[in-house]
C-alpha cells in the first residue's frame, strides 16, 4: 500500500490502522469500532473510544472518547470554564459535557469531512493524534480542582 496515495475513506483504512498500532478492538452491532484502555494513573481514569467510518459520497470519520470519570452537576460552571480554557490553549480535542441526573460526563469528539479521500498517513495522523490528545486532556483534567 502506498501510504501517501489518496484513496476513498473506507473501513479497510481503519483495519490497517488497527493492525499498525496493534490495537485489539471490538465491533458493535451498529458497526462501530470500540477501543478500551485500562486504568491509567496519569490520567486517573479508564478510556474508551468509538470509531465510525462513514463511507460514500459524504464520507467522514467520526470518533468519540469518554472515560469512567464523573463530575458533580454543581461543578458545571467550573467545568465550562476549564473546557473553554482548554479549547483556547490546545488544538485538540473538542470536549463536550453531558449531564445525567446529578452527574456530568465529559466526552471528546472528532468529526472530519474526508469526502475528497484521504491518504493512510493522514488518516493515521488524524486518528492517532486524537487518541494522544484526548489522553493529554484527561491528564490535564486530573490536575484541575474540579
Amino acid at each position: 500500500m502506498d501510504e501517501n496515495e489518496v484513496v476513498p475513506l473506507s473501513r479497510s483504512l481503519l483495519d490497517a490502522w488497527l493492525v499498525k498500532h496493534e490495537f485489539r478492538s471490538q465491533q458493535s452491532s451498529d458497526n462501530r469500532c470500540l477501543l478500551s484502555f485500562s486504568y491509567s494513573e496519569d490520567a486517573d481514569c479508564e478510556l474508551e473510544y468509538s470509531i465510525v467510518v462513514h463511507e460514500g459520497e459524504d464520507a467522514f470519520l467520526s470518533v468519540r472518547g469518554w472515560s469512567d470519570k464523573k463530575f458533580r452537576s454543581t461543578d458545571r460552571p467550573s467545568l465550562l470554564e476549564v473546557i473553554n480554557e482548554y479549547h483556547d490553549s490546545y488544538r485538540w480535542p473538542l470536549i463536550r459535557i453531558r449531564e445525567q441526573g446529578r452527574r456530568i460526563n465529559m466526552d471528546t469528539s472528532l468529526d472530519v469531512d474526508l469526502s475528497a479521500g484521504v491518504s493512510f498517513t493522514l488518516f493515521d495522523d488524524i486518528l492517532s493524534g486524537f487518541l494522544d490528545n484526548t489522553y493529554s486532556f484527561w491528564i490535564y483534567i486530573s490536575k484541575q480542582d474540579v
Partner: protein
Amino acid sequence: MGVSTDVATVIRTALDQSKFSFFQRSISEDDGVRVDEFLVRYNYDRRAKTEIDYLLSLVTYADGAKILDIFGSNTHFYEHDQRNQLLEALQQYLSRFRNPKVVMRALDTVLQTRTEAHYPVTSGLSEEIFLALFSDFRSANFSFLRWMNETDHGRQIPADDDDIQDPAPPEE
C-alpha cells in the same frame, strides 16, 4: 492522485482556482517555526448577521511537523456579565452539532467567540482534501453563527467600529 508536502502551495493553488479572494503572508520565527497565513475575508453576511473572516494558518515546526489551523472570526460581541450564559451557549451548541470547536475569548471590554479547526498535515495534502476540509469548516461556522442568532443565549452588543479586531495587515 497523491498528496504534496508543499502544503502552502497546495492551499494557495486551491484558493486561487476556487476564486477565493485572499491575502497571504509568511512569518519565520527565531525558533525555526514558519507560519504561512492566508486570510480570506467576507463582507457582512445577512444570514449570519456578521462580518466573517477565515484565517488559514499553516504552522511548520523546526522538526518538519506541519499543522493547518483554521480560524473563523465574527463581529458579535457580548457583555462581560454574560460570561456564564455565553459559556453555557457554546457548550449547548457543541452538544448538538459536530463542528466546529467554539471558544469564548475575553477582550478588554467585551466577550467574543471564535471558531476553530485543526489538522495535522505533516504528510501533505491534496487540493481536493484541503477544499473539502475548508468547505466543511465554513458550513459548520455558518451553523454556529445561525444557532447563536436564533437561540436565547444572551444579548449581543451591536458591533461598533472601534471594537472590531482586525488582524494585522497581511503582507502580499
